[in-house]
């Protein structure tokens, strides 16, 4: 019986520690958080991290798209979403890899937006020379080169130059649901055109 008690005590202690850490980790931030969060995160983060996506407290209200246009044979195409065929495939077959592939351009758009915002805040441009510096810095970023590479891989024609745009689209709001608009409003940011070679994935970190 003593042996059983020893085993039960040891397993019970580990159980209690794990459950307590999980509970503290998932608690909303409160005045006591700072006293335990270092130790709790040290235990939970490497193996038991639980992200926002697991709980999704807020519904999705917008989508991020990476749109492109191409210079083919001396003239520019219109803006288009290179991921549109993937979206169509995903809608026709939920078991295909298209659903997960769509995360890639969405993430590229988010990553590029974040970098653009960071650079914009840091440089705080008010004149064209500063804007040119900002664009030059964005173009050097890995996020921009990855976005261009994605667009180049999905080009519809033999292009010499490519331009990308990040569009955050908000669907028709509840009050305008009967107007049949493709989207209600959008935040867009277009980037300078670059030669397609800028999308070479070699060396992108």
């Amino acid at each position, binding site marked *: *019986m003593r*042996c*059983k008690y*020893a*085993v*039960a005590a*040891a*397993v*019970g202690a*580990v*159980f209690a520690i794990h*459950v307590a850490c*999980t*509970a503290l980790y*998932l608690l909303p931030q409160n005045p006591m958080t700072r006293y335990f969060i270092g130790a709790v995160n040290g235990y939970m*983060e*490497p*193996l038991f*991290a*639980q992200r926002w*996506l*697991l*709980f*999704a*407290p*807020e*519904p*999705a*209200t*917008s*989508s991020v*798209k990476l749109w492109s246009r191409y210079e083919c044979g001396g003239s520019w195409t219109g803006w288009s979403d290179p991921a549109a065929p993937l*979206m169509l495939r*995903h*809608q026709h077959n*939920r*078991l*295909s*890899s298209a*659903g*997960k*592939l*769509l995360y*890639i351009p*969405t*993430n590229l758009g988010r*990553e590029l937006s974040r970098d653009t915002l960071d650079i914009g805040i840091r440089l705080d441009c008010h004149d064209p020379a500063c804007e040119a510096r900002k664009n030059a810095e964005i173009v050097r970023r*890995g996020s921009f080169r*990855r976005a261009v590479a*994605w667009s180049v*891989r999905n080009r519809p024609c033999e292009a010499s130059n490519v331009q990308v745009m990040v569009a955050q*689209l908000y*669907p*028709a709001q*509840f009050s305008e*649901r*009967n107007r*049949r608009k493709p*989207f209600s409003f959008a935040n867009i940011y277009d980037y300078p055109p670059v030669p397609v070679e800028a999308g070479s994935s070699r060396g992108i*970190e």
Partner: protein
Amino acid sequence: MKRLDALVNVLTESRTHPHTVRLFRRIVYGWYLLSVLMLVPSARQFWGPDSLIPLQPVRPIPLLQLLDLNAVRPWFPLFVIAEVALLIVGMTCRWPRITALLIYIVSMNLNNRAWVTLDGGDNLMQIMLIYLIFMDPAPPSDAPAEGVRGYANNAITNAVFLIARLQVVAVYLVAGLGKVTGELWQNGTAIFYTLSVDDFTLPAVRSFVADWPVFSVVATYVTLLYQVSFPWLIWNRRFRPWLMGLGTFIHLQIALVMGLFSFGLAVMSSYVVFFTDAKSAAVMTRAAVWAARLDLRGNAARVLRPAAH
């Protein structure tokens, strides 16, 4: 004192849900198998050397991020093959702990390389993979029942099984409380907005929610009520089947209509931890009968049949 003795005996003398542990293991590994096979046609884009997925900024456990190394990346097909082979072995419940550990390592390597494609379902399943390392899926007759090793084996399996249940409850508790305070959940339009976003809908469904606002309002409140009540009602055996039935319906909608296929299936898979042991045994017996019909040699049936007590 008697109650404490009884508690210690329950914890150490036998495993409380041997069939459910076995079924849960198969369902989780089955989910991983389906997930990896779905991605195989586009494997290069997820794990290949020219993938456009950036590397993760931090590497807390390098062993779980081997595919971030330039020298290892071209060998990604080996990880995929190893994953498929290990998952199949894992589903047979042979060499359970070492197989479970290897499955965790290989799965995390694949997940970490394609980290931008992960959703909440992957997150939940990653945690369940760790729990599976500690759960013994052996038939009750095979497990050592006496001595420190036997007591420890039973106690660890039982405790980790309860932790897996609490983990599912925690997900619903946090998700439910988070939603209750959300404006769109309170005013009944959350489902309308989600099903209007290009990424999480079908064209016909988008038109439907625009034409029938009452549907999205009712669906929003039913979802909210379900998530808030799950952590409490799931422990009640009378409510449990109804609750899991409603949850399965909601997550099928998430999988097929919203297109979050692996997420919907992952949450449904996690419900298995709430099956009674008799129910799990019945499910496995039925699976064995089906397998026997399909497999004339009876190999699959032998693997799937639950072991007798």
